[in-house]
């Protein structure tokens, strides 16, 4: 190295400065080529013409989006009116995911609070207990739930024998079953970020509130909830986003009436009845919704966190 020249990478306080491109290259190649490129391709496909046995014809067409939003009658010659079928499926999915998020919050917050206020020793054990199910295969969890609650399953058998009910509850293939499945799948995603927020919560704030004549529930509403709000919002997003595109819970636990986005998209790519451009269009709409939510979240995050 020439004397007097600006010092090279080795003398910087970031000792691997200059190596970043080399170190990042594998991530760029893998994710760029096998995820970003497919998603872009999907976006392109949503504007192509469908081929009848699955696949596409390379001809620009808005037919997929038209089919999603408008009804032009059986032969496509009637004046367009709003097609409610697919919007309805999306709406129902959003509603289902929203409700699941709400239920997870209602149960998850007290659970997270309870765990975070234990002494450090038992805290990690409680946390461990709550997270184990998350590590168990999602398919197996969902199948287990199906087994438990179906009409001839142990739950109904037990209740029938005890005599609480006269006939099976008919839980399976209902919205309730789907809710139960979503709750079961994603509850830890709600508990963990709230737990992290409560663990950092300074209990002197509660003491100050109590000192200023606030009751326990008022303190919860006016002090605790606003302070741990970042954890709550993170939890809500972590539950809502995967619930929206969930496939296993609605497919295994729900029926025809609980059809959600995941199944709608899946149908378009399986077997011969598929319509790839339409499935691609539905995927793009789902992706847009999710990215919008994440974007709004990221914006707010940047505003509240001063870096």
């Amino acid at each position: 190295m020439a004397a007097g020249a600006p010092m090279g990478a080795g003398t910087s306080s970031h000792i691997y400065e200059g190596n970043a491109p080399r170190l990042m290259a594998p991530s760029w190649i893998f994710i760029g080529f096998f995820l970003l490129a497919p998603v872009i391709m999907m976006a392109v496909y949503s504007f192509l013409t469908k081929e009848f046995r699955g696949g596409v014809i390379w001809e620009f067409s808005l037919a997929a989006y038209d089919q999603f939003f408008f009804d032009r009658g059986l032969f496509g010659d009637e004046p367009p009116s709003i097609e409610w079928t697919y919007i309805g499926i999306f709406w129902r999915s959003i509603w289902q995911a929203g409700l699941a998020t709400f239920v997870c919050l209602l149960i998850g917050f007290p659970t997270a609070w309870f765990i975070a206020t234990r002494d450090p020793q038992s805290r990690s054990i409680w946390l461990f207990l709550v997270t184990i199910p998350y590590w168990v295969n999602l398919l197996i969890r969902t199948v287990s739930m199906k087994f438990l609650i179906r009409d001839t399953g142990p739950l109904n058998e037990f209740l029938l024998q005890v005599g609480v009910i006269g006939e099976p509850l008919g839980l399976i293939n209902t919205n309730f079953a789907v809710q139960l499945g979503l709750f079961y799948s994603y509850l830890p995603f709600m508990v963990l970020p709230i737990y992290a927020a409560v663990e950092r919560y300074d209990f002197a704030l509660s003491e100050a509130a109590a000192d200023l004549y606030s009751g326990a529930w008022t303190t919860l509403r006016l002090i605790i909830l606003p302070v741990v709000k970042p954890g709550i919002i993170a939890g809500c997003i972590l539950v809502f986003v995967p619930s929206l595109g969930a496939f296993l819970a609605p497919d295994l636990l729900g029926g025809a009436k609980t059809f959600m986005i995941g199944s709608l998209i899946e149908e378009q790519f399986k077997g011969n009845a598929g319509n790839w451009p339409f499935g691609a269009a539905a995927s793009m709409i789902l992706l847009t919704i999710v990215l919008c939510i994440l974007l709004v979240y990221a914006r707010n995050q940047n505003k509240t966190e001063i870096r």
Partner: protein
Amino acid sequence: MASVTDLRRFPGFLAITLTCLVVLYAPLIVVAVYSFNASTSITNWGGFSLTWYVDVFTGPDAPKFQRAAINSLIIAVCAAVAATSIATAAAVAMTRAGRFKGKTLSFALINLPLMVPEVVTAVASLVFFSAIGFTTGLLTILVAHIVFCIPFAYLPISARMQSIPDTYEQAAMDLYATPRQAFTMVLLPLMTPGILSGFLLAFIISLDDFLITNFVKGAGVETLPTAIFGSVKQGIKPNIMAISTLMLGVSIVFVSLSWLIGRTGQNKK
């Protein structure tokens, strides 16, 4: 007595937590119990027996599930190794290379697999792989798994690296270590707990995946989840419960392992 002045306690929170645990564990426990059922009819208890475990290994479906289990294991090990290596390199770049061009974009890219809904990733992969004619079964599944395992491996590794002050490497360099020696002799040993938990997380996530695998797998290639799903579509048979219980056991072993590693990692700090 729970005193009025304990500001940490809210009535009913314990009950909710316990309810929560019951809901989380009841299905798993019930399935585990019924997997030891001697009766062929699934719901009636016919006494304790290992019939269905024997069936899993020797029954008519045994070859199919064994093949699927081996596939799952091969894919999970390879995907976890690859994803962990890629994520480690990325974490070093993100935490130790200062600012570089495209850093924010790189961060977004690493996290992209977490942001795109799974079903979208699944169909996009299917469309893309069939367009480029890459449909060789196992290898296709492996590539897809590596991609979505990268962010899961990255998270614990980069968290660990952020907690290691860079004065350690500076001290090493001050004591005549080259940058490469500073990495292998100081940084790498300190990163190990993070790398191990990243590996375990990636392994479990790969083993867990059903949706993406189901789309990109070629005809005739099965992993354990797709095989189980296919079988469940024709009704829940007792051998499925035995397989599920076995997988449950594997999962619990793994989570305990990663929990212990996490603890030693914290103590070492």
